[in-house]
């Protein structure tokens, strides 16, 4: 039986260890952690030989099912499901219903099914089909079928529907899964809904906690897509604070959205354990490179400004990223980020990447993705380290000092 132990919980920030995963006694996962965002099982832009150049890649790969649900019959032929189909080796596989980086068009769910957007168009998924997908895909973990199509503007009535449907589908799925060979209590994550209605949120949390689920996934604050990186988290945070207390502490909590650094920290303070790496993907898609500083120990020997090179005058970095489309990088022969040990920074210059971006060459996304994903995983490593060293607040301060400041040109 999967075990999740919370080792410490300070300022609301949980640090834990996951062990005894079904069929994987060898694996230990420390939280807070970030799963590897993938589409169709592959990290966007990176072939597996290139993806393997990223050090410290987490042991869980996140696969939004929309990218593969249209190929169910092909996956069914594979003995180990999606692991064989997409050649995924040893990593643990977690399936989510929606893709956090892809916009979901609202208003398409009904009482029987959820609209999932594949590249071929809309596919309506009902509990029966969802169970069929899970039997075929064989994820280690997966989020339950849920109606997360709510946000700040959604009416109370619609929010209640979303909570009720999601619970009803959960029961139907559990019933169906128990008849199949999927060990749902070790794999299935119940999904909490309730929009911005606190009583609905509490109801959803309490009810879901009663079901035999392996963990929880929190959604329904906004519909998926790149825009979620800009959400105002203040209200969400207080709602999370209040509702997560109704969950058992020994089960992990996943939340999806495009997570810029400060939101990751806010969500940690609200009690979230597991994130996805759609943020570095979104940054790559806008041809930018992450340069934010997470070295909270203040050992920065060199201070980096987004406009390239080092500058002893400047006290901190400004903003999280630099835009490689910017012509000022044309003749900048330094790496994306001084001191970064990623494959891209060890080999290529801003000048070359700027050229690739401006000539719209595919290698631009490859090189930026390697760096951005590496940087983001390093950020999470430093989050865990900061908790261990009791320096979380210093990290928080450092991140906030770089937040939302417009880039100087």
């Amino acid at each position: 039986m999967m075990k999740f132990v919370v080792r410490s919980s300070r300022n609301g920030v949980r640090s834990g260890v996951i062990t005894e995963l079904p069929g994987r006694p060898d694996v230990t996962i420390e939280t807070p952690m970030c799963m590897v965002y993938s589409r169709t099982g592959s990290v966007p832009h990176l072939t597996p030989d290139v993806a393997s150049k990223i050090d410290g890649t987490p042991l869980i790969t996140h696969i939004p099912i929309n990218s593969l649900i249209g190929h169910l019959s092909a996956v069914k032929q594979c003995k180990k499901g999606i692991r064989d189909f997409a050649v995924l080796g040893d990593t643990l596989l977690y399936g989510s219903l929606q893709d956090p980086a892809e916009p979901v068009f609202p208003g398409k769910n009904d009482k029987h099914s959820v609209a999932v957007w594949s590249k071929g168009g809309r596919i309506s998924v009902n509990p029966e089909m969802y169970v069929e997908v899970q039997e075929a895909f064989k994820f280690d973990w997966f989020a339950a079928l849920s109606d997360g199509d709510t946000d700040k503007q959604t009416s109370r009535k619609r929010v209640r529907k979303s909570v009720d449907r999601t619970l009803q589908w959960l029961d139907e799925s559990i019933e169906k899964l128990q008849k199949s060979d999927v060990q749902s209590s070790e794999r299935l994550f119940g999904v909490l809904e309730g929009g911005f209605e606190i009583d609905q949120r509490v109801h959803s949390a309490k009810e879901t906690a009663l079901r035999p689920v392996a963990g929880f996934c929190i959604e329904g604050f906004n519909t998926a897509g790149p825009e979620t990186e800009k959400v105002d988290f203040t209200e969400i945070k207080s709602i999370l604070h209040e509702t997560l207390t109704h969950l058992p502490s020994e089960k992990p909590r996943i939340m999806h959205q495009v997570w810029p650094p400060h939101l990751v920290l806010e969500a940690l303070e609200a009690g979230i354990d597991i994130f996805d790496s759609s943020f570095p993907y979104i940054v790559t898609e806008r041809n930018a490179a992450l340069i934010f500083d997470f070295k909270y120990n203040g050992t920065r020997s060199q201070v980096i400004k987004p406009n390239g090179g080092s500058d002893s005058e400047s006290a901190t970095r400004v903003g999280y990223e630099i835009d490689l489309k910017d012509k000022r990088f044309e003749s900048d022969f330094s790496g994306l980020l001084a001191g970064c040990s990623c494959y891209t920074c060890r080999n290529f210059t801003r000048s070359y990447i700027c050229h690739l971006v401006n000539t719209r060459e595919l290698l631009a996304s490859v090189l930026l993705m390697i760096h951005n994903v590496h940087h983001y995983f390093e950020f999470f490593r430093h989050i865990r380290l900061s908790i261990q060293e009791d320096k979380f607040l210093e990290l928080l301060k450092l991140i906030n000092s770089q937040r939302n400041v417009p880039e100087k040109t």
Partner: protein
Amino acid sequence: KHALSLKILGECSTTKARVCQLTLPHQVVDTPVFMPVGTQGTLKGILPEQLEDLGCQIMLSNTYHLGHRPGPELLTQAGGLHNWMRWNRALLTDSGGFQMVSLLKLAEITEQGVKFESPHDGSEMMLTPEESMRIQNSIGADIMMQLDDVVSSTTSGPRVEEAMHRSIRWLDRCIKAHKNTSKQNLFAIVQGGLDETLRNQCIEEMTKRDVPGFAIGGLSGGEEKQHFWKMVNISTDSLPKEKPRYLMGVGYAVDLVVCSALGCDMFDCVFPTRTARFGTALVPSGQLQLKKEVYANDTRPIDDNCECLTCRNYSRAYLHSIVTKETIACHLVTLHNVAYQLNLMKYVRKSIMEDTLPKFIQNFMLEQFPHKQYPQWAVDALSTVGVTLL
């Protein structure tokens, strides 16, 4: 002395094919060789390291594109293209003239050079042989091409002759303007359209110059294949044996095999990498369109006998689920297609060394054309070098 040496390792006893070791400043290249095209200083999302892993020894970049962006000044600052793009092996650049004439509607050829309208600001610009050399010297490729007077291979009449003579004059200007002879090799380009006399005349003149290698130019532009192979054939008959022969713009599998038999050493073509983007994979029997529904449940790799990363790992069904949707589909098919081209040339070299090339060609052609509907030009070309198809 030139910055290259050519050592003939083996010759086919039937055809004109040969295996050579071409030693260039950055790499020893085994010929006959296919050179993938990385137009803007990058090959379709593939890392230089991945290309090395495939066994690629030389690749091509385009002077017109690089001269435009990032431009020769930046390339010089960056320490040349090798350093900038992190490619440690051999590079070849074209002169920029062909791209200009084919990409820009307003290009006009004068004795001075190729006059064109700047795609930036519409101002009038001129690519002279001297300017082409200046840009190519800044790129620093192991092999550079002279600027030639490009006429369409379907043109006939006095314009062809004029272009041939002008190409010789421009060769002399290029030789004079080339500033880096110790590290870069300048190849002459044989012109003369589809006219045997003009081709021979051009070769006679050009071989008087001490250039390190020759390209066969002005072909592969939509001319009839019967004309194409004859021009290739007469060119390899008269070009000096001890210098490399580069057949420009040729890269379809059948063309590679036939023209290797005709005695060409080097080839380039955008087709294998360009077509990968649309999910077309090259296989011994021709091409697979991975988009097609028939591959949706096909658990086989693209090619059972291919050892590339893609074929070692992925099924046609998986590739089908991602082609034209995810960039990695493009990368995976590109890797395979480059591997296919390089393997094909490896088999050609191996059968030349074992002196079994005619047999190899027979089997290869039968696999490509299982109903023996061989293209007539290939039948004719191969029979002139003593190969009869099955």
